[in-house]
């Protein structure tokens, strides 16, 4: 169990997370939902070690054990689909590339460059690259943005079967309905649980 206790983050005089607490089970998909600016992305970045929390603690995981899918794709224009995966996989795990491509429904695109992919395909490549990382918690910031709903739900079902838990941000009601755990952040801080 991963436990966030009383997390507090502020930028200047703006409080983004105010004594926010959360429990993430050891498996399954936890979905975070809420309006813009309520601190969803900041929470993911704190767990990934990219932002510092001014208060509170995170137990059961360290930033080095997480894998973060950024809100934007951040693909490398000079690397092919396959290379994006082999860049993060150790050589001993390169055999997992077809499985990752199948999970994100990108089979047959191995040699394609990001400039030739559609927006949804680029998003799925970014997701596949994130899942290629060996992590104990996957933090996915809007992983289904630009992906058609039936495909998003199919991928979500596969994410539920991953050996590590997934904490994802989504606004899509159908995705929220399929979550193992749903956390709605109703507005600006404070979010006390």
């Amino acid at each position: 169990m991963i436990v966030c206790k009383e997390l507090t983050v502020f930028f200047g005089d703006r409080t983004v997370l105010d004594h926010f607490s959360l429990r993430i089970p050891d498996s399954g998909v936890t979905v975070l939902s809420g309006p813009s600016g309520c601190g969803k992305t900041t929470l993911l970045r704190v767990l990934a070690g990219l932002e510092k929390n001014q208060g509170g603690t995170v137990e059961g995981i360290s930033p080095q054990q997480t894998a973060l899918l950024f809100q934007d794709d951040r693909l490398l224009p000079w690397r092919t689909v396959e290379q994006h995966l082999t860049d993060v996989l150790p050589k001993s795990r390169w055999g997992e590339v077809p499985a990752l491509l199948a999970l994100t429904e990108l089979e047959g695109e191995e040699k394609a460059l990001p400039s030739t992919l559609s927006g949804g395909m680029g998003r799925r490549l970014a997701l596949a690259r994130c899942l290629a990382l060996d992590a104990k918690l996957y933090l996915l910031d809007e992983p289904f943005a630009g992906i058609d709903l039936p495909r998003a739900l199919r991928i979500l079902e596969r994410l539920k079967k991953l050996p590590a838990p997934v904490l994802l941000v989504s606004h899509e009601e159908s995705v929220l309905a399929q979550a193992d755990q749903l956390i709605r952040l109703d507005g600006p801080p404070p979010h006390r649980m």
Partner: protein
Amino acid sequence: MTPSTMEWTKPLKKVLYVLPAPAFWVGVWQVCALLVDRHVDGRGNELLLPYPISVWNALVSMLGTGDFWAVVLASLGRIAVGLMCGVLLGAALAVVTHGSRWCDRLLSPAIRVARAAPVASFILLVLLWTGRNRVPAVISALMVLPVVWDSLSQGIRAVDRKLLELAKAYRFSRFKTGKLVYLPSLRPYILTALTNAAGLAWKSGVAAEVLCLPDPSLGQRIYYTKYYLDIPELFAWTAVTVALSMALERLLRACLAKWGKGWAA
């Protein structure tokens, strides 16, 4: 138009696209030489502004000698060594000054001074410190270094912060970050730096050869044309220098184009 006709017209179109500009300037040159000829008697024309055909004849007679290639290869070797050293040192300094604020404060003023100082002063100083044969390479390197440093420093500062954050979050090693993020992002800056550096290396290297007269060298031959007032040969050697500089620049561009094939803008 049949495919075979299209294939035949392709090189013709290319020639028609490339030829007008040089033809225009050769025409301007011919007219100017004619005007000089009308105002000067005897060989005066050959001393002030020779006809293109005289330069062409001088070039052809030079090309026929074995000595010509020895001169060209010797200069090419010296300047290529200088260019390579300048590029490597400039790149290394760009990395160092970006990585450490202390190094930046220490080294940046010295590099800026090297960029602003007159090349003739450097040539004379280096001539005193080393043998005459080494001066062109050292001068080329010294002139190239600040240009490469400046261009690559700008490039390093312009690398996408989001990609660097990705590299950090995905636990890329320094080597991997350099290879996968920095190097490809720097490609346009490397291209600019190398093409500017190649031209500068030739200019400064040949200037150093003219002043130091290493044997054999393009600069030495240019110096001798002044000595014997052989102006067509001066033009011919200058044309050789320009052609070599352009060929080197094209070669570098072609190599970099191959590197960025498929993804480069």
